[in-house]
């Protein structure tokens, strides 16, 4: 799509200073309102006329949505906490280094200074057909240009769960939060609900037009990290075309509880291989109770089970297998 240089279409801008006010506004404005976090994903699409909200609710002045605090054993991160703050927070680094590392690998310093943890996990897909304004399934149209066209450019697209749409989840922090069994607090004028972060994400089999369960009038307010995986052995790696400032081709977040060299329990989650972060329960089951060296081959074999490569993304199968191996052995060779 041609770059439009005359700015964004007009909208009414609201800048509430409390969650309560934000929810009142969200309830009043309904589907007309767009919830703005850091704005890096949103403003681009406003400029490209792909989204034309009548009203924008900027959450940037809601102080109670920012910061990290302890609540009992849980660590509670406000959804508007920036990725830089997540990356630098001493408590996150000490207990949940996996998340700090993932946040530090997102995009560029400027984007991490502005982009938020809530926004990072709620951003839309980067599929260029979709973002270019093509009328694909996800945009309400009748085909997937990446996966169903013989000319489709699909090097960056999905390996798993392609049910119509071949777009992938672009987030680095989402796999880390799933590995850590985080829970999300979602509020609306009607009340609050808590969902496991794994259930926050939506695949095309459930709803091809959505990436997450956040509904009209709802605000993601908190990301809660339970002590379940605090301080275990972590592994995060992001493979991308450039060493910085790029979306993942594949990323992996792993948490392993070890007794000596034996894996007591583990979680492995991949990003950028499906429309939602892709957990590997079969690998987790296969490695439990085994020594790292003994577990690695079976894990690598199982890691890509169910993968259906598109013509240009077969290399992701090898990446997935090798990333699982590295996660188990804890080695980065470069």
């Amino acid at each position, binding site marked *: 799509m041609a770059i439009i240089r005359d700015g964004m279409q007009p909208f*009414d801008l609201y*800048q509430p200073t409390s969650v309560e006010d934000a929810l009142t506004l969200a309830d009043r404005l309904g589907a007309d309102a767009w919830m703005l976090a850091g*704005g*890096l994903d949103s403003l*681009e699409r*406003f400029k490209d006329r792909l989204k034309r909200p009548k*009203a924008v609710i*900027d959450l940037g002045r809601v102080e109670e949505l920012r910061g990290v605090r302890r609540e009992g054993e849980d660590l509670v991160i406000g959804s508007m906490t920036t990725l830089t703050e997540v990356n630098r927070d001493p408590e996150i680094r000490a207990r949940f280094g996996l998340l700090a590392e993932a946040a530090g690998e997102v995009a560029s310093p*400027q984007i991490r200074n502005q982009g938020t943890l809530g926004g990072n996990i709620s951003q839309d897909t980067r599929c260029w057909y979709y973002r270019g304004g093509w009328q694909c399934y996800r945009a309400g149209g009748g085909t997937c240009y990446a996966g169903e066209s013989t000319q489709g450019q699909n090097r960056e697209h999905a390996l798993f769960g392609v049910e119509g749409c071949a777009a992938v989840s672009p987030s680095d922090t989402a796999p880390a939060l799933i590995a850590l069994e985080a829970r999300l607090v979602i509020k609306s004028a009607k009340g609050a609900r808590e969902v496991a972060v794994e259930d926050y994400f939506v695949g095309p089999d459930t709803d091809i037009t959505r990436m997450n369960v956040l509904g009209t009038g709802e605000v993601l307010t908190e990301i809660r990290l339970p002590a379940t995986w605090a301080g275990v052995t972590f592994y995060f790696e992001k493979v991308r075309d450039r060493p910085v400032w790029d979306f993942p081709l594949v990323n992996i977040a792993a948490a392993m509880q070890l007794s000596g060299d034996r894996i007591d329990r583990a979680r492995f989650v991949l990003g950028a291989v499906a429309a939602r972060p892709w957990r590997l329960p079969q690998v987790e089951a296969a490695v439990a109770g085994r020594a790292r060296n003994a577990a690695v081959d079976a894990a690598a074999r199982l890691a890509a089970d169910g993968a259906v490569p598109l013509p240009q993304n077969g290399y992701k199968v090898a990446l997935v297998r090798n990333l699982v191996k590295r996660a188990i052995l804890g080695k980065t060779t470069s």
Partner: protein
Amino acid sequence: MNASPLEPIRPGGMTRRQFIKSVIAAGAVTSAGLLFTGPAGAGHKTSPGAVERLITLTVNGQQRRVDVLPQETLAQTLRGKLGLTGLKVGCDRAECGACTVLVDNEPLYACSTLTHSVRGKNILTVEGLARADGGLHPLQQGVLDEQGFQCGYCAPGFLMATLGYLTANPNPTRQELAHGVSGNLCRCQDYDKILTALMRGAEYMRRG
């Protein structure tokens, strides 16, 4: 300022008369007219409880009154209305870094920041680097001494990103600084010399 957080800042939230008054007050009548052909100043009726679009920004230590549309980016305000054309708009999509400015000492992309979101914060652009007597900032002196840039379009963004990075790490290795300015692109591919120049500037800053 927002009268109430539940009230919006509207694109056409003022009468024509109020609008003209406000842009005159901001000293920006010509540039605002050139930049925006939308509802700004198009005589929309006043909405009940509508919010003043005329806000005060703190830029390079000065209080600047300016009329800001709800959908306006900081890059548009600084360049088009306040005449601060040092920052450049390369991609307008948070993909090149030429528009980098400091907001409360943190480097941000001005092209992807709503101006209303930085109300009450300290904005520093490349114009704010030089001393009052016109002497160069040590970082600029380093660039001058090492002839750091080729075409220079990306230079203001690199300078501001570097300044922000050095706040946290005043004595970086070359590798660390390269990572610190990894949110800025140079299409001349002059990175090696840029890094040499920025390292020299960082050294001058440490000497004070």
